[in-house]
């Protein structure tokens, strides 16, 4: 091959790179290992992290995934293809994405879905930017963001939108219900905002009064951006039907639809909207069309929104998205069906109810908010939450998410979750261990009733 090129040595191919810039052997990088040794290493690493019994939710949920989902998703033809730029040679991916869009719009009750964003949090950031661009009634770049929204989502949105001078105004929550504080909200009724963000369920697991909030937003010329758990949509009123007109944009974390916990990713963000807003939508969209013979086919469409066509005027900079996760989600939704998703949602709801009952039977453990939840619940402990979690973890139980960092006003509060995968033994396991942890940490009876 060198002879064909007309050089004597492979080094000659790099002759345009200034010698001074070349680097030597990179000693700090370990030498190559054969696959069998890397296997051994990874097996050891996977093993030491244990497989603790998990009652954490907080944005990532441990659900059953049919074996078929990943056996199909990792088929080479899905796994090693790329963005379907050549539509005729990518009908597999394209049709699947169209089916995904069909399922998501059905689940969310909206007209349009894109083909994924990175994750739920960044999807919300894109939704916010989309609302700013898309709200014809508002000239403002201000957004109302409730504190009952996932703290990490609020941080991510801030990181992403702040450079475009979008202002995020926080709305408090009601200390009794955990819901968006309507009084606090009303204060902003007269101001110009592009959108109100409405989580369902909110970060505390509590179900917001979405109909009223949506109508309120519309009444005040704002768009309503729903942030939902897509699994909850199998059971709850879909965002497209909230209030009189439905939410305008709906986004969220797709993980509960077939992505394993896997340390937080890859997951995928979904984004749906009304038909009116489709030209403001970021990301890939697939359309159904016909070929020259009139045969049905699928292709990327509305590409004029995208960076590869529109460059600095694009609706977003996103290029590579989370295609494979969407492949998994599409297969997952197909295998579960509406009935299956609804059962999973109901079972998770019921299990969290059982968990709440079991734990609040312990002295000093009590629910923090009244009102209906989806599958998470805030509980207050009679001991330091952080210490309790560490003690439980030492017994291989992950007891929930410690709220005291993000919501110090709640005291020693935990956010717990029991999906359909946790059974009665698991719940009893947790209860029993928490009982012992509390017993060993509560020194004097007077501390049984803490002084918040």
């Amino acid at each position, binding site marked *: 091959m060198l002879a064909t090129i007309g050089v004597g040595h492979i080094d000659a191919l790099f002759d345009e790179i200034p010698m001074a810039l070349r680097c030597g052997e990179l000693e700090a990088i370990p030498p190559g290992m054969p696959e069998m040794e890397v296997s051994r290493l990874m097996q050891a690493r996977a093993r030491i992290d244990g497989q603790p019994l998990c009652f954490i939710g907080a944005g990532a949920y441990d659900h059953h995934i049919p074996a078929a989902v990943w056996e199909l998703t990792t088929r080479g033809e899905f796994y090693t293809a790329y963005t379907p730029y050549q539509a005729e040679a*990518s009908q597999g991916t394209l049709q699947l994405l169209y089916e995904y*869009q069909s399922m998501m719009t059905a689940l969310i009750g909206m007209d349009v879905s894109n083909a994924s964003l990175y994750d739920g949090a960044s999807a919300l950031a894109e939704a916010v930017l989309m609302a700013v661009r898309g709200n014809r009634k508002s000239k403002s770049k201000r957004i109302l963001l409730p504190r009952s929204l996932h703290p990490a989502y609020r941080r991510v949105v801030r990181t992403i939108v702040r450079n475009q001078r979008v202002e995020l105004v926080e709305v408090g929550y009601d200390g009794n219900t955990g819901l968006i504080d309507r009084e606090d909200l009303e204060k902003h009724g007269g101001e110009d905002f592009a959108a109100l963000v409405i989580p369902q369920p909110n970060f505390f697991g509590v179900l917001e009064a979405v109909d009223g909030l949506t109508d309120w937003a519309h009444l005040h010329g704002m768009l309503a951006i729903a942030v939902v758990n897509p699994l909850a949509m199998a059971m709850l009123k879909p965002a497209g039907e909230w209030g009189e007109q439905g939410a305008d944009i709906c986004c969220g974390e797709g993980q509960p639809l077939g992505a394993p916990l896997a340390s937080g990713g890859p997951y995928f963000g979904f984004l749906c909207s009304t038909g009116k807003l489709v030209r403001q939508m970021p990301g890939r969209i697939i359309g159904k069309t016909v070929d020259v013979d009139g045969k049905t086919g699928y292709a990327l469409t509305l590409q004029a929104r995208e960076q590869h066509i529109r460059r600095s005027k694009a609706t977003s900079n996103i290029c590579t998205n989370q295609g494979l996760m969407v492949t998994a989600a599409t297969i997952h939704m197909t295998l579960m*069906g509406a009935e299956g998703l609804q059962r999973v949602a109901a079972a998770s709801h019921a299990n969290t109810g059982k968990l709440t009952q079991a734990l609040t039977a312990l002295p000093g453990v009590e629910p923090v908010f009244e009102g209906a939840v989806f599958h998470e619940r805030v509980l207050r402990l009679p001991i330091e939450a952080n210490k309790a979690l560490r003690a439980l973890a030492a017994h291989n139980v992950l007891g929930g998410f410690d709220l005291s960092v993000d919501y110090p006003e709640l005291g020693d509060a935990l956010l717990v979750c029991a999906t359909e995968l946790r059974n009665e033994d698991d719940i009893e396991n947790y209860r029993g261990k928490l009982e012992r942890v509390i017993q060993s940490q509560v020194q004097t009876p007077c501390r049984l009733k803490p002084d918040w």
Partner: protein
Amino acid sequence: MIYEHSREGRRATAQAPLETTEATDIPAEMRRSTQPRLPQVSEMQAVRHFTRLSQKNFSIDTQFYPLGSCTMKYNPRACNTLASLPGLLSRHPLAPDTHSQGFMACLYELQEILQTVTGMYAVSLTPAAGAQGEFAGVAMIRAYHDAREDSARSEILVPDAAHGTNPASAVMCGYKAREIPTGADGDIDIEALKTALGPQTAGIMLTNPSTVGVFERRIKEIAELVHAAGGLLYYDGANLNAILGKVRPGDMGFDVIHMNLHKTFSTPHGGGGPGAGPVGVGKRLEPYLPVPMVDFDGSDYRWLTEEDRPDSIGRLSAFAGNAGVLIRAYIYARLLGREGMHRVSEFSTLNANYLLKRLMDAGFDAAYPERRASHEFILTLKKQAKELGVNTMDFAKRLLDYGVHAPTTYFPLLVSECLLVEPTETEAKEDLDNFVEIMRTIKQEAENQPETVKQAPHTMPVRRLDDVRAARELDLAWKGSE
């Protein structure tokens, strides 16, 4: 369509809990009144449908896929198998550090490996793809200027050949994107650059080798000019494959870079993603790196968050980015090792130069015939388009009939009728030779029976699709069997 197999009441019964309860404690008005219209099929119908769908795709595992700029190289299966070990798949992202040391060790070592191979001072793995890495990088540039209260800097320079994500990312960060022309030799037009530079310059985004497939020879000079103007240099790592272990962005003078692990580190492209776009920075920008990052004190690994890094531009995703992709990249890096890294650039460059030479011998025109190809190169089919009326798109579609994926078409925009060809290091000489034969055949067809080429493809599941109709008569979701 999967919906066409659907039938009321049918389902894959083993997949849901056996019984269902009504959540009566949830007020009726909050509950859904009708079931969403999802497919109602058996498990077998689903498996058969999606298996057959998959077969309609071209992919690396089935075809030569020389899609320029995308580095479609072989993805070792071990990366997927090992990243799917039950212990890794079941780890909750908020699991405590006591139950995360194995996972964090992989991430920490990956940070170190990427740092070393790029010559940067520190790396954050969290961006989910190249474009998010670009966003993070430009946001860091902005944070840097802001911290110095250097608030007049409002422009990011990008070559006209730049990938669309570059200007789009600049705009996402509140900058104006200003284009710099490329010279006839493929290098940046330095005079134009000089003119563009000024107190309004926040920085410049470059790819090197550039998107036209050649190494920017005056990179040191460019770095000096930009730095002298008070701007910073951003390196778009999409083409890192070409120089891995040979020359490092850090040594070229870049202040901040992203890497596309789905390209250089061979994590799969997955029909569009997920990828991972870690960012590396020089010392100046280190405080601004996005969180979380992993720290190691010699005995334990722990997360660095906003608390540890108050100047960070912040968080880009709810957890730690595309963790599973990072694990795959880590496995790939360990398989490759030190020696493997420069084999990547050597063989990808060898393959590209060989293929270019052979295609030129077969009568095709290189866009930059005087230049050494990097790991990719550009052909221009101007002549064919003009003389035979057979354009780049026609060639691309006809290639599909011969069982190879088309190279990137019509990008970069500045070369007319262009094909950006990237064979990658994992293709064998025979496959390159085969590609040359196919191109030669298509050229002959274009000369002798142009209609065959212009109406291609002929052997795909569909023929050419009506994109205009797709955009005009929007059909973005199934409406039911009409």
